[in-house]
């Protein structure tokens, strides 16, 4: 039973001008137009295409965040995913969350759902981290095909053409694997209104990171500024790092 997990992130729309909050604690998100991360759209499209070509049976869309992310999952469902999973994280926890926690969540879900593939966007346009796919693969000890511009399934293996600095690289990896979508992988389809209406009937399961055995992200400690390199070395020696 071939199942694909697709990660979708709700981000501030790329055309909106970002404003820093007056208290400098972050950016203004209230009431601001959000949409699905463009690379996540491409990931969803690829998963749905694989299902249409009958390589896989089910596509599950996953998103981590507050209640609003269900809108993003709904769009993925309208594009052709079969069901959704909303991992609820809100408030300060959501602001502190980063690729490491997300990858832990995805790794746990991939095992739980017995997924053959995890397809993610290569990076999110709000933080440009480009880490979640790679970390997820490492946690699962699965092969990874990142910056994919072409994906072909060949029996138990996946042929991935990757966009790299020097041009294109073709690799063949065995499943289960993690893939991350790059720009030229495909052109995402529109989520049409009849599909949005049908998507309202598709299931979105709700859970918390704790349900998957993932801890809350550690509180971020303040950093320290030093004046000279000697100070830096002294501080690092003092706290046992070197």
């Amino acid at each position, binding site marked *: 039973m071939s199942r694909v997990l697709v990660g979708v992130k709700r981000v501030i729309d790329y055309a909106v001008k970002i404003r820093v909050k007056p208290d400098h604690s972050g950016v203004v998100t209230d*009431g601001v*137009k959000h949409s699905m991360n463009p690379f996540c759209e491409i990931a969803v499209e690829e998963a749905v295409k694989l299902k249409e070509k009958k390589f896989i049976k089910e596509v599950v869309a996953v998103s981590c965040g507050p209640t609003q992310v269900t809108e993003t999952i709904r769009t993925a469902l309208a594009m052709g995913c079969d069901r959704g999973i909303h991992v609820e994280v809100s408030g300060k926890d959501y602001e502190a969350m980063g690729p490491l926690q997300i990858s832990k969540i995805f790794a746990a879900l991939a095992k739980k759902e017995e997924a053959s593939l995890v397809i993610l966007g290569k990076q999110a346009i709000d933080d440009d981290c480009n880490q979640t796919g790679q970390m997820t693969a490492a946690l699962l000890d699965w092969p990874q095909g990142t910056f994919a511009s072409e994906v072909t399934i060949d029996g138990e293996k996946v042929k991935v053409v990757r966009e790299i600095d020097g041009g294109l690289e073709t690799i063949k990896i065995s499943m289960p694997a993690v893939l991350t979508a790059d720009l030229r992988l495909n052109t995402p389809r529109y989520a049409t209104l*009849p599909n949005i209406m049908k998507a309202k009937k598709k299931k979105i399961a709700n859970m918390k990171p704790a349900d998957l055995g993932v801890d809350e992200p550690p509180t971020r400690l303040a950093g320290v500024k030093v004046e000279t390199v000697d100070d830096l070395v002294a501080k690092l020696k003092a706290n046992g790092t070197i």
Partner: protein
Amino acid sequence: CLSLSESTTHRIICTAHYTWGRNCSSAVMPRITSHYTIFPRDKDPRWEGVEMERFADEADVVIVGGGPAGLSAAIRLKQLAKEQEKELRVCLVEKASQIGAHTLSGACLEPSALNELFPDWKERGAPLNTPVTEDLFSILTEKYRIPVPMLPGLPMNNHGNYIVRLGHFVHWLGEQAEELGVEIYPGYAAAEVLFHEDGSVKGIATNDVGIAKDGSPKDVFERGMELHAKVTLFGEGCHGHLAKQLYRQFNLRENCEPQTYAIGLKELWVIDEKKWRPGRVEHSVGWPLNRNTYGGSFLYHLNEGEPLVALGFVVGLDYTNPYLSPFREFQRWKHHPFVAKTLEGGDRIAYGARALNEGGYQCLPKVTFPGGMLIGCSPGFMNVPKIKGTHTAMKSGMLAAEAIFPKVTAEDPASETAGLHIPEYEDNLKKSWIWKELYAVRNIRPSFHNYFGLYGGMIYTGVFYWILRGKEPWTLKHAGLDSAQLKPAKECTPIEYPKPDGKLSFDLLSSVALSGTNHEGDQPPHLTLKDDSIPVANNLAIYDGPEQRFCPAGVYEYVPLETGEGMRLQINAQNCVHCKTCDIKDPSQNINWVVPEGSGGPAYNGL
């Protein structure tokens, strides 16, 4: 060569125009328009064999437009359904990506309609956070300010009203509507009116997606969806594109004057806390406009936590000088000492623009027709001297709902036409406070059409409105179509606008960026031209291309041709903020604004 499609009555130009380039002077003009409303697809070889069948669904009532009117109508319908324990499917489509993203207004809300709709609006958390505490009115000269007393009884007196961020208020209305079970679909624009065989309105179809810029189908092409209803409400706001078609189809404007409009431009600023006076309302007339150009400014101090002011400038679109740029008038007004002192040291965080109605009572069309009705600013219930239209828009939506409800839930609607014709809505309007209000102020705006312009109008208001409350037995007429008011460029003097200083005043493109507007680039421009050759031949030749100046988003640019002599019109459709000014003010009436792919347009946040 006229299209005989039953579902559209756009004037379609003969497909002889469907050639690449038209010879004009010594050079070949590149084609601008490729939209299927001008070049029908059934005659286009690139569309042969493409599946054009649409998925259709049925609702009891379909509402076009998620603004105050549309949402109030939806809410009222569901409230009645709940009271009387009846089932009712209400679907609302909205072209913005989220409810409130295309909403722009001053705004001073008169809570009269809200009190009727939700008497418990405060408990429900309606974002009316700023009661008006101070009301100032000024006549500005270039350097000075003449205060005008805001006597109670004058239409602009704001006692009891709230300064709101209308986008947030509309968003809240959307949440209330969803809670009541209204199906709201943001991101889907109503692109076409559908008709029954008997000519009554059957519903609407949403926009197609996946058409390339040259009008050909892309791989991701998908047809829009049809939503059928017993009655369809059109609440597209000022100068809606479907309403424009319905006026012609059902002859709704035969007994009223043509609508007249203004353009309103708005910015949000975070100012220095020391200058912040929450609850203060400031209006001005005069500088920088001359006495014969209708317009003025507003500046409202909000009270929502941070020192935020909403400010803007309105210019009547019956202005005569083609060199006038409403955007640049707005920018230079901010340099007036009285305004600059509030804004100095502040930061601009938002920008937007929208056309608004100025016609009032004289310009109200018939609002009901078989299968549908018009609500809100679309027919135009704005009280111009009060500068408020939200309360009347909401009330019109509520009255429409109350007239519709018994008909759509009746066992046997006993209707002559397949789409229900419900003239009771119009009767209810005429008996309501909307009508009384609009009648009382009907002569104020037209009174500006005299030699003394602004001053004549103010004297008229003082005498006839303040004293007589509009009971004078005559009704003044407006000047006619706004698009016919421009004088040829050679009869007018160009206006010397100051360069933006980057602190108080800004250039157009950085302003447009702040509106967050965007559209899918690879789609036919939605600013369609009935005839591609007219902009250069008429607009540029006679009026020096006024669209370059009245568009608040820099959509229209006259650029030199790549080869040969002469200019061509370049349409930057992606910048469009959906204000509708071009469709209104184009002296050739050649521009027909149609709806682009849903989700496109501005991303206003509480504007």
